[in-house]
């Protein structure tokens, strides 16, 4: 371990204090382990022989840091948090939480030479997302992504109490143009529904929330820049409550920003929570009552890692007339992962995980699979639209459609 720290200092990193604290965190977390092997039984990657959480934690206690990082590939972990549900030693602020342990390990080891090789190996989309966030992290660059709102007659304000955080959806619209899904429909429906309830949300040119660069790369410095920029932007506009449309943005705003930003006093709501609170859908008349069967996929960042927000999207779906919600086999705490997190590690193993989840959804007999996370949306859509030699796989396109909750409501209301 000592040699490992020395390497970091020679590399010219001035973050020695942070490093020391991180290592203390990791070891104190690892010492809680019972070695009961429950996490390995649950972990979707341990069934595929890639990653074993308990072995990692065991090695953290008994052997040196360098050995641990060479023997275990920490970049394989999906940080889906399945293990935290069954681990007897997981508590809210105490005990061992494996996703956060992995995050701490990633923060430390991202500059290590052996690890850099592994990071580049699990890159997807030619590193486009880390590149974009690296460029955005420069202070002089101010994003300019609200053009799509000009076409629609939507009311937005520049200062006020309620803000809506769009995030990277307009960017994803341009990157995944060939998937056949319009990401801009999500902010358009949310803003227009808010307008119908006489709420004019503050919509600003904010930067990325920084979720991907934190969880996928462990890059805490750029994450801090994003957090400070975004919170300062909203403070200047006099914002008090923030509505977030996606699962990952919700998690970062609610749980990661308060840890990093000093005086964080925003109330953070997922849009489904806010709609239920303000009773927005109850006053809206749907043009026709068509019978639609629907299932709902719980994403990890809104469920296990994001305060277990299971009920509000379901209640929102039930408020739509004519829509029947059929549950899948594994829901809520046990919901299977979509397979890829933070746009890393797209390979045959994660392909298998996606296949599992889509098959579960098809078996319910539903027409639509509703998700609330833009990443689940892209990965499922990518899997469904993939050309293959298998006939059954090609028929998936006709069996089920993957849509976002907001854009689903928008389509029914003819808003988009």
């Amino acid at each position, binding site marked *: 371990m000592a040699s490992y720290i020395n390497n970091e200092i020679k590399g010219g990193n001035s973050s020695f204090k942070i490093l020391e604290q991180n290592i203390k965190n990791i070891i104190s977390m690892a010492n809680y382990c019972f070695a009961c092997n429950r996490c390995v039984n649950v972990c979707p990657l341990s069934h595929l022989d890639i990653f074993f959480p308990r072995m990692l934690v065991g090695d953290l206690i008994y052997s040196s840091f360098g050995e641990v990082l060479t023997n275990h590939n920490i970049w394989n972990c999906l940080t889906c948090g399945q293990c935290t549900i069954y681990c007897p030693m997981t508590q809210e602020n105490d005990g061992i939480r494996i996703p956060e342990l992995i995050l701490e390990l990633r923060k430390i080891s991202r500059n290590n030479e052996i690890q850099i090789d592994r990071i580049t190996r699990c890159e997807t989309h030619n590193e*486009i997302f880390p590149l974009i966030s690296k460029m*955005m992290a420069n202070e002089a660059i101010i994003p300019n992504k609200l*053009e799509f709102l000009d076409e629609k007659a939507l009311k937005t304000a520049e200062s006020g109490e309620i803000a809506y955080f769009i995030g990277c959806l307009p960017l994803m619209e341009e990157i995944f143009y060939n998937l056949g899904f319009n990401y801009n429909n999500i902010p358009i429906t949310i803003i227009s529904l808010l307008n119908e309830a006489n709420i004019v949300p503050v919509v600003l040119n904010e930067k990325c929330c920084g979720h991907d660069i934190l969880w996928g790369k462990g890059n805490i410095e750029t994450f801090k820049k994003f957090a400070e920029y975004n919170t300062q932007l909203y403070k200047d506009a006099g914002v008090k409550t923030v509505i977030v449309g996606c699962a990952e943005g919700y998690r970062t705003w609610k749980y990661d920003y308060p840890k990093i930003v000093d005086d964080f006093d925003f109330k953070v709501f997922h849009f489904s929570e806010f709609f239920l609170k303000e009773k927005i859908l109850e006053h809206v008349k749907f043009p026709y009552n068509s019978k639609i069967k629907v299932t709902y996929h719980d994403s990890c960042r809104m469920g296990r890692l994001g305060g277990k927000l299971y009920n509000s999207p379901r209640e929102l779906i039930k408020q739509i007339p004519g829509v029947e919600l059929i549950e899948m086999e594994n829901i809520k705490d046990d919901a299977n992962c979509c397979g890829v997190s933070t746009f890393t590690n797209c390979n045959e193993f994660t392909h298998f995980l996606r296949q599992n989840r889509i098959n579960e959804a098809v078996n319910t007999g539903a027409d639509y699979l509703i998700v609330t996370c833009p990443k689940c949306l892209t990965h499922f859509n990518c899997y469904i639209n993939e050309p293959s030699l298998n006939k059954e796989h090609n028929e998936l396109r006709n069996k089920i459609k993957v849509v976002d909750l907001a854009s689903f409501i928008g389509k029914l209301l003819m808003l988009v």
Partner: protein
Amino acid sequence: MQWIMKLFNLGGLILLKIKKKVKSEFEPNILVFCCNWCSYAGADLAGVSRFQYPPNIRIIRVMCSSRVDPTFVLRAFNNGIDGVLIIGCHMGDCHYMKGFEYTQVRMVHLKNLIRYIGIEADRFQLHSISASEGKQFSELIKDFTKKIIEFGELKIPKKSGIFELEYNCTKK
């Protein structure tokens, strides 16, 4: 004596700095991707027939313009390049039948993406030049460098010796 020498040295340094400041009109770094069959031959023709164009460009030859991934352009901007040009064939002239059509679709989206990130969208342009258009090539480069000089330096901090960066990578 030594301190006198030191003084002289310092004076020399200051002089050098002043000279640099006088020199420093903005010289943009421009990256050009040329397709092997049309536009690279066009650039060749411009050189052979001695049409003048500014020396700020560096050409990377690719077999087809559709080889250029959107991330190549973003990576160039991230390393401190001020402008990127992609030059392909004219419509229907592609050596690989449909290559340039693919690039056109891709680059429309890339241009939007660059604007959303917060960089002027005209710093990145897509043009088509055939093997016989040497004159047009030199004029295109002249116009583009003029435009980039009008925009000024890109706000992203530059890495020292951008054009030498590639050599360092290959040595490893």
